[in-house]
């Protein structure tokens, strides 16, 4: 009898083991550590800036327009999303018609159609609508500011009117997402409840939300674009603000993917066989400078000298190679780069010559004061980097002082403008910048009529040629023509040394060798659907 019992037990154990290993092998789980301290808002318009759009925007939701994130080599471009096509009226260029995609369903099974678009725009912009949600409205305000009105033409056609002719609208629409009205009704018209069980149209569906700890997304097998049905079954998002914790969690096998590993951890990660993925993306680490009465930067010679004084290659080395030297606001090779004649090279001699012309020298330096932060989104390693620039400046005759404050305080000072009383005596602000759409990258930074806080012109840069190019680019509805004008504008502002540009971040991510299929697009958002665990 005994041997038989043993056999039975052994068989049972084997069966159990086989069963459990089978279960784990079936589900492909990708675990990602974000830098955010909390899971971004899940109801539609995510919080937490670029990271929110990346992990809780394009995953669970779609815009009328989507980003094409399939290329490593080229800058990300727009492509049809929930709208299949769009056109702008010839007469006054403010009336846009969007033809919607048919057969798209929200995660709760309800249909996406023109009513959904109107309902969602009401949710963001119509304060007296029952579904108006201030949290989402505020997050979306960066993108809907240009929209004046919207209406349904038929079930699959909507009309959007802009306040002024604005060719940048499709870019803005790539960041406005659509949530299900039926789901909101079902959950008692309570957005706080929707947060735990939202329904978008995107390739991933939110399954579990534990605030401040994790969000679990599962694949949407019925996604309307069959090419983008996720290759992984489950995507686990973990907020992990501490960089060392993220690295340790990756090295110990608790997660598969970390955002923004610190540069000094890269050699260790590589030696453990981790993949380090980098690519250019629309990011620049600059000093946005002041053109007010007391600013030495009013003199183009000083601006050019400052740009020539910086040893960008040295700074790249300081950053362990995780950056590229800037040649302007925009990365070289991008359609908006243009052909600047002012080359942002390291030329301290020329810098000194220019400063001498302007009346400064190492013994009689130009004195400037710049606001910096010890950390912050996209700020890279701000303290050593700023010290590095300070040394470079000192060598040529610019004496730079810092006012150090934390990231949110710095953002507040940028939003206030150089002319605000609290910014008196400040000549620059070291606020990392994105050029993911024409507005934030070029148009609203260079135009004299776009001051902060609604625009991005911090220092009162005022230049008739730049203004003219901005106005024309806003009226260029043909993407080719628009790109040409943007390139012309970029050429001009580089030649004017509008800001002091240092380096572009290379957006490093570290992932386990088991992660396959990821293509890091030149964008702030990324497509996680082709990613697979092996």
């Amino acid at each position, binding site marked *: 009898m005994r041997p038989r019992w043993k056999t039975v037990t052994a068989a049972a154990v084997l069966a159990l083991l086989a069963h459990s290993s089978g279960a784990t092998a079936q589900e492909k789980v990708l675990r990602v550590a974000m830098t955010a*301290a*909390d899971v971004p*808002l899940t109801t539609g318009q995510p*919080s937490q*800036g670029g990271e929110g759009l990346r992990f809780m925007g394009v995953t669970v939701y779609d815009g009328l327009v989507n980003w094409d994130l399939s290329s490593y080599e080229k800058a990300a471009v727009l492509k049809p999303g929930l709208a299949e096509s769009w056109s702008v009226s010839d007469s006054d260029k403010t009336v846009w018609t969007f033809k919607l995609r048919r057969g798209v369903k929200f995660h709760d099974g309800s249909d996406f159609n023109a009513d959904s678009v109107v309902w969602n725009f009401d949710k963001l912009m119509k304060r007296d609508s029952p579904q108006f949600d*201030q*949290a989402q*409205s*505020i*997050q979306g*305000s*960066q993108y809907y*500011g240009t929209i004046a009105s919207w209406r349904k033409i038929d079930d699959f056609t909507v009309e959007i009117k802009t306040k002024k002719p604005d060719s940048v609208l499709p870019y803005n629409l790539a960041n406005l997402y659509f949530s299900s009205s039926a789901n909101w009704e079902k959950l008692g018209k309570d957005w*706080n409840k929707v947060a735990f069980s939202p329904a978008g149209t995107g390739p991933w569906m939110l399954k579990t939300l*534990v*605030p*401040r*700890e*994790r969000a679990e997304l599962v694949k949407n097998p019925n996604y309307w674009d069959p090419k983008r049905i996720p290759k992984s079954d489950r995507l686990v998002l*973990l907020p*992990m*603000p*501490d960089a*060392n*914790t993220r690295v*340790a*969690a990756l*090295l*110990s*096998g*608790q997660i598969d993917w970390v955002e923004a590993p610190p540069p000094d951890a890269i050699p260790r990660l590589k030696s453990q066989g981790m993949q380090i993925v980098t690519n250019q993306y629309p990011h620049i680490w600059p000093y946005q400078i002041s053109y007010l009465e007391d600013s030495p930067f009013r003199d183009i010679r000083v601006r050019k000298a400052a740009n020539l004084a910086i040893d960008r290659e040295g700074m790249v080395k300081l950053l362990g190679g995780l950056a590229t030297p800037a040649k302007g606001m925009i990365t070289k090779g991008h359609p908006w780069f243009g052909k600047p004649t002012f080359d942002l090279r390291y030329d301290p001699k020329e810098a000194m010559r220019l400063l001498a012309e302007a009346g400064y020298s190492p013994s009689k330096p130009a004195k400037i004061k710049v606001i910096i932060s010890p950390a912050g989104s996209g700020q890279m390693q701000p303290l050593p980097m700023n010290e590095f620039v300070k040394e470079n400046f000192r060598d040529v005759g610019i004496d730079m002082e810092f006012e150090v*404050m*934390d*990231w*949110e*305080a710095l*953002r*507040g000072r940028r*939003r206030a403008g150089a002319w605000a009383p609290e910014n008196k005596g400040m000549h620059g602000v070291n606020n990392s910048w994105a050029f993911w759409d024409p*507005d*934030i990258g070029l148009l*609203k930074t260079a135009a004299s009529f776009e001051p902060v*806080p*609604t*625009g*991005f012109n911090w220092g009162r840069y005022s230049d008739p040629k730049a203004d003219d190019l901005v106005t024309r680019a806003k009226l260029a509805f043909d993407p080719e023509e628009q790109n040409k004008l943007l390139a012309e504008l970029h050429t001009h502002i580089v030649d004017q040394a509008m800001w002091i540009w240092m380096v572009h971040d290379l957006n490093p991510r570290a992932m386990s060798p088991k992660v396959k299929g990821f293509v890091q697009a030149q964008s702030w958002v990324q497509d996680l659907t082709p990613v697979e665990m092996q």
Partner: protein
Amino acid sequence: MLLYLLRRILYTLPIAIGVSMVCFALIHLAPGDPLSAVIPEGASPEVIAELKAAYGFDQPLPIQYFNWIWRAVQGDFGMSIMTRRPVLSEVGPAVVNTMILAVAAVTLGFGFGVGLGIAAGYTAGSVIDRIVTAISVSGVSVPHYWLGMVLIVIFAVNLGVLPAMGMGAQGSATFALDWVSLRHLILPAIAMSVIPAGIIARSVRGTVIEVLKQDYVQTLHAKGLPGRRVFVHVVKNAAPTVLAIMGLQLAQLLGGSILVETVFSWPGTGFLLNTAIFTRDLPILQGTILVLSMFFVAINLMVDLLQSVLDPRIKRA
């Protein structure tokens, strides 16, 4: 006794008001806008004004304070700026999570501290005593977040035997008294226990030495009481002092260690405070600090009561 208890509870009121005022003032003295973290780029002044009004930040500071305290008295601590969830629903789970960690750390710290302290007290001046003193001094001096990182590197990264972060395989929601969850508790509990262990060891050592010098101990020995029984008397007499220190330590650990919880991504009050500080989430900061200060006061009160139970000579009337 009852009167004493009532009076002590009454005393917590001015403490609570004082704490909330200081905390409110300090937070508003810090530079930066509390709404900064949620205002997107390019938000118009109207949007900002609307948001300010929604949180009452458009009112003068004293009014803001009174509004807040008035609602807090009614149990409404407002809503988080970042997440728009009620503050209590954020602070509640965090307090529970920190309590789990604090109890584990205090148990560890108390066990080691008392053991080492008694050993050193009994062998004062010997090698053992010196070793224990060295251990307790290092325990008090070592930065616990650094120790946390070292523990992670050794046990999670190099040996791969314990997890580096988090609170259970599926987060705090699935924390249970099983091996899967407890594995997550080990490293942070050790990191957090070294300071209380060091402090308790030192004070136990001192108290034991003092008690051993007392006449009644010599009398007990002289009467021929076995060492084991004398030991019980020594411990009993040393207990009130040690208990007071332990209470303070527990209260401090309940405040959550901002650094240790951040290093281990432990979703407790320290982690919550840390993220609230960086995102300028005033309602969360105020709510958490007030709740924690109340805990501090409550634990002190409990320790005081317990002391008088253990040592009736301490009068609490």
